[in-house]
């Protein structure tokens, strides 16, 4: 299981502060402030605002976005492709921190939000008065941001009936606001559930006895929900507060200081939940989940580890993490989310897991499109979107590899792509926390929606390549390090030699002792190759062994590479290094060999693609080192070769 967990990348989403920091979103770019300031100069400012909003932003940053939106509106600029939405916000306490965050966050969900508020403390008057601003503004919806403090929920009840009366009275009050807003403004209401305060009177009995505060809050929440009809929308603040912890949600100091209805650190989270609802009300919730396979849907690399080597078993702690991802995916499928696969894999090998692995929860019949090939994922995801006739903004793409995420984000910015923590145990939680599939209602039609799409795991032909992959690779700031075999690298070299199957030209296996002897073999030339990029250290990703067979000739005995770095011109750089070293040593000819196995179809044309010419028989390929070497596509570091020392 080693190299897959080796990525030294530590920028992964933080698990402890997942909700507080919206860790499924990438960090804000360093030039965030400048881009906000320069918004007027952008040719498509609506798109730019949405792109900026699709980061983990704090309240001041969200306020900055809100201000940028206000300036654009004042200048009469088009906000396409954003959808306008006018939201009345009625609430108890100070909403000044919340409103700019709502506006900044709504952009993330494709909404250009305008908020209509009331003066502090006047929410009830504004709801009841038919001539009030809220009722006259033509709101598309009104958010009733009430919490426990706003309602008469002080329990004096000694029996169930009394408690029920108190709960009913509180719910009646909310209901009167709701019906009044509907009558006067003709608008949908977003009604919040109530988060209980963490302070209890009786302890555990608070939940059980009618005099308990939790008992009353539970009763009131039930009442509130029971009165809503299909046109109303619920914002489950109670659920949100439970998720992060009531004691963290409610800050007595901040309530006293500024009447903040909940702790300021949760303003971005609260705003995102409102934004999801607004997006869902305007049909902008995502509809299709595109999944990577290796180390996303199961542990391990199926092409190298084999079907029996992947981690997906119940009872295996690594396997359980990936089972959680499959379980969530399956549940989403059952509620109507369309599933697709985009994986760098051999199609037949990848499908075998779905057909033959007894512990897999997902099967081919759950999947609508199945793209397992070696082409870039942006092109594949575009093809999936076209096949399903869904916009890219309806797609979510989940991949453990930050480089793949970065590529798709850059070339297809409308696709939602969660950042993932380093521990796969938290993949499912992170995907669920991102709330991509927010739904304001659930009907049997929703359940059947995915059945409208044939689920036959079809393979879609690729059309034109999407965007400029090379420009993305250039932005990765890759640095490749070449070194001869040595003691420090030995165990990893042995491991790669003995487990790499896919990108492996000859599949020759060597023992640790054999590898050690190569370190001092004057007739061999060896390379261990490492790669770093802006996302971190990929570790050792390629190994080459050349043997001098005739004077002036090297035979490439072994050439293997981790598929994780496929499509990043690593093989060209390795050949370049081999050619440069060969010339140094007076080697004029390289002989490459491809020995087919049942796993290495991927590299059948490896030597042809690199400009070798076919020689007679046995899949041999020749390269004259006087011919030009591949161009340098990344920074190179060399550690000294001590051959035959």
């Amino acid at each position, binding site marked *: 299981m080693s190299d897959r967990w080796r990525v030294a990348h530590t920028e992964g989403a933080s698990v402890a502060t997942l909700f507080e920091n919206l860790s499924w979103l990438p960090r804000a770019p360093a030039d965030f402030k400048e881009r906000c300031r320069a918004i007027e100069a952008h040719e498509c400012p609506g798109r730019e605002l949405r792109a900026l909003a699709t980061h983990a932003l704090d309240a001041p940053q969200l306020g900055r976005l809100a201000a940028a939106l206000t300036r654009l509106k004042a200048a009469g600029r088009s906000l396409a492709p954003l959808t306008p939405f006018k939201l009345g916000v009625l609430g108890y306490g100070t909403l000044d*921190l919340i409103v700019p965050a709502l506006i900044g966050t709504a952009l993330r969900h494709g909404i250009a939000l305008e908020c209509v508020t009331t003066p502090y403390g006047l929410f009830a008057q504004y709801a009841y008065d038919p001539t009030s601003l809220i009722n006259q503004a033509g709101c598309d919806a009104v958010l009733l941001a009430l919490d426990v403090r706003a309602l008469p929920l002080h329990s004096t009840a000694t029996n169930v009936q009394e408690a029920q009366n108190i709960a009913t009275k509180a719910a009646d009050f909310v209901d009167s606001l709701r019906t009044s807003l509907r009558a006067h403004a003709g608008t949908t209401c977003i009604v919040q559930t109530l988060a209980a305060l963490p302070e209890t009177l009786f302890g555990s009995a608070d939940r059980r006895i009618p005099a308990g505060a939790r008992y009353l809050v539970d009763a009131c929440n039930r009442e509130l929900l029971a009165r809503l009809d299909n046109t109303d929308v619920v914002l489950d603040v109670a659920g949100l507060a439970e998720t992060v912890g009531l004691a963290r949600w409610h800050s007595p*100091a*901040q309530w*006293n*200081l500024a009447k903040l209805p909940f702790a300021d650190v949760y303003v971005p989270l609260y705003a995102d939940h409102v934004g999801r609802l607004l997006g869902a009300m305007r049909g902008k919730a995502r509809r299709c989940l595109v999944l990577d396979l290796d180390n996303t849907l199961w542990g391990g690399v199926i092409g190298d580890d084999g079907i029996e080597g992947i981690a997906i078993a119940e009872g295996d702690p690594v396997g359980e993490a990936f089972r959680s991802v499959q379980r969530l995916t399956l549940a989403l499928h059952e509620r109507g989310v369309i599933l697709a696969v985009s994986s760098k894999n051999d199609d037949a090998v990848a499908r075998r897991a779905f057909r033959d692995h007894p512990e897999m929860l997902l099967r081919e019949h759950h999947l609508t499109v199945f793209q397992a090939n070696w082409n870039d994922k942006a092109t594949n995801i575009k093809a999936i979107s076209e096949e399903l006739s869904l916009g890219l903004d309806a797609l979510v793409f989940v991949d453990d590899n930050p480089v793949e995420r970065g590529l798709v984000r850059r070339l297809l910015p409308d696709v939602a792509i969660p950042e993932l923590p380093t521990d796969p145990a938290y993949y499912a939680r992170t995907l669920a926390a991102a709330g991509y599939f927010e739904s304001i209602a659930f009907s049997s039609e929703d359940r059947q929606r995915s059945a409208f799409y044939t689920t036959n795991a079809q393979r879609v032909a690729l059309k034109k390549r999407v965007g400029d992959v090379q420009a993305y690779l250039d932005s990765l700031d890759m640095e490749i390090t070449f070194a001869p075999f040595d003691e420090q690298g030995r165990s990893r070299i042995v491991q790669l030699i003995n487990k790499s199957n896919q990108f492996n030209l000859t599949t020759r296996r060597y023992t640790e002792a054999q590898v050690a002897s190569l370190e001092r073999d004057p007739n061999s030339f060896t390379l261990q190759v490492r790669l770093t990029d802006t996302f971190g250290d990929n570790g050792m990703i390629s190994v080459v062994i050349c043997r001098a067979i005739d004077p002036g000739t090297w035979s490439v005995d072994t050439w293997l590479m981790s598929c994780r770095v496929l499509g990043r011109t690593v093989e060209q750089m390795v050949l370049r290094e081999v050619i440069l070293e060969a010339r140094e040593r007076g080697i004029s000819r390289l002989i490459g060999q491809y020995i087919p196995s049942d796993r290495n179809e991927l590299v059948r044309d490896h030597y042809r693609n690199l400009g070798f010419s076919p020689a007679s028989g046995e899949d041999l390929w020749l390269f004259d080192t006087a011919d030009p070497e591949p161009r340098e596509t990344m920074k190179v570091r060399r550690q000294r070769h001590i051959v035959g020392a």
Partner: protein
Amino acid sequence: MQSADAVYDQLNAILRDLLDDDALVLAPDTTAKDVDGWDSMTNVQLMLSVEKTFGLHLSAARIAAFRNVGDLVAYIVENA
């Protein structure tokens, strides 16, 4: 313990961000009414940012006792 200069740098950065004014420079005797836009909500946001940035809690009584920026800086230097 942080130097007063370092604290001023960070406070300048926080308040510049809150007020979107890159020219703002705080002095020991600066008070809210000396600065355009520094209203009560800005003050709340500043206090919350100070708590987060310096890892301390400011009670309501403590906040009420700050007469100017100099008092705030002195408290941070002492307690952060």
